[in-house]
């Protein structure tokens, strides 16, 4: 009788074997993690993704799957792709702002600009 089932096996209402693929990444004290990935990806798909990876990468993969699932539950239309879009937009804005300021610096530093300013003061 295994009294310390992982969150996945508890959710799936099954025994948690000693070599359970989910156990290291979905501990019983955080049932939400598995609930999210199960809702979006399905236990079977998550298991396949983890099994296809070397053990050293599985923790990170589980984390990113959780994050993606969480984003999808929060935003069922755009999920993580929505965040990528927002960041791309911010990147464009920041690039434009930087180019504008650099142009302003270049203009301000040009001797002709300084001369214009001086003449304007006379």
């Amino acid at each position, binding site marked *: 009788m295994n009294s310390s089932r992982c969150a996945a096996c508890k959710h799936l209402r099954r025994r948690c074997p000693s070599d359970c693929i989910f156990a290291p*990444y979905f*501990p019983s004290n*955080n049932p*939400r*993690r598995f609930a*999210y990935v199960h*809702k*979006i*990806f*399905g236990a*079977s*798909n998550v298991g396949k*993704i983890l099994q*296809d*990876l070397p053990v050293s*990468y599985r*923790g*990170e*993969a589980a*984390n*990113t*799957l*959780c*994050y*993606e699932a*969480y*984003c*999808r539950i*929060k935003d*069922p*239309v*755009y*999920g*993580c*792709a*929505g*965040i*990528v879009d*927002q*960041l*791309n937009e*911010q*990147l464009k804005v*920041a*690039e434009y*702002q*930087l180019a*504008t*300021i*650099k142009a*302003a*610096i270049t203009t*301000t*530093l040009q001797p002709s600009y*300084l001369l214009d*300013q*001086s003449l*304007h*003061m*006379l």
Partner: protein
Amino acid sequence: MGGGTSPCASCKLLRRRCAKDCIFSPYFPPDDPHKFAIVHKVFGASNVSKMLQELPFHQRGDAVSSLVYEANARMRDPVYGCVGAISFLQNQVSQLQMQLAVAQAEILCIQMQQEQQQPPLMTHNNDHGGEDDKSSLVNFSSLQHYLSFASTSSTNNVMQDPLKRESLWT
């Protein structure tokens, strides 16, 4: 099969009859089987169907597009998926904002230096002090416009969701 339309990509892959009200058929046409194959591999047809059913009709197209994007990202990078792209872009945005802050500081220094160089001319023309003050104010206020750029907190708004993920990590 007398004159019926061909099954959608999902029903072809799932080897089932494509009903008239098939939830997948508007978004997975038969001429692009790869699109559904990817989404099915990562999310599963059943999960995709449930997700689409929970959405109003006019949002389903966008949902499918974003699911395809995420599925492709996950296939290319099984460890990070599109979270890898998010990390990369956040880095890029942070770096640009640092460069922006440096550039703003630079332009402020230049302005201050110019103002320090100007006083002898300005005192000579003190009679027209009002106009000179206005012209220097005009220069400074136009530069203030550049200085307000970095204060946008939209990155912080995007970051709040990733920060919340801490509760999801073991």
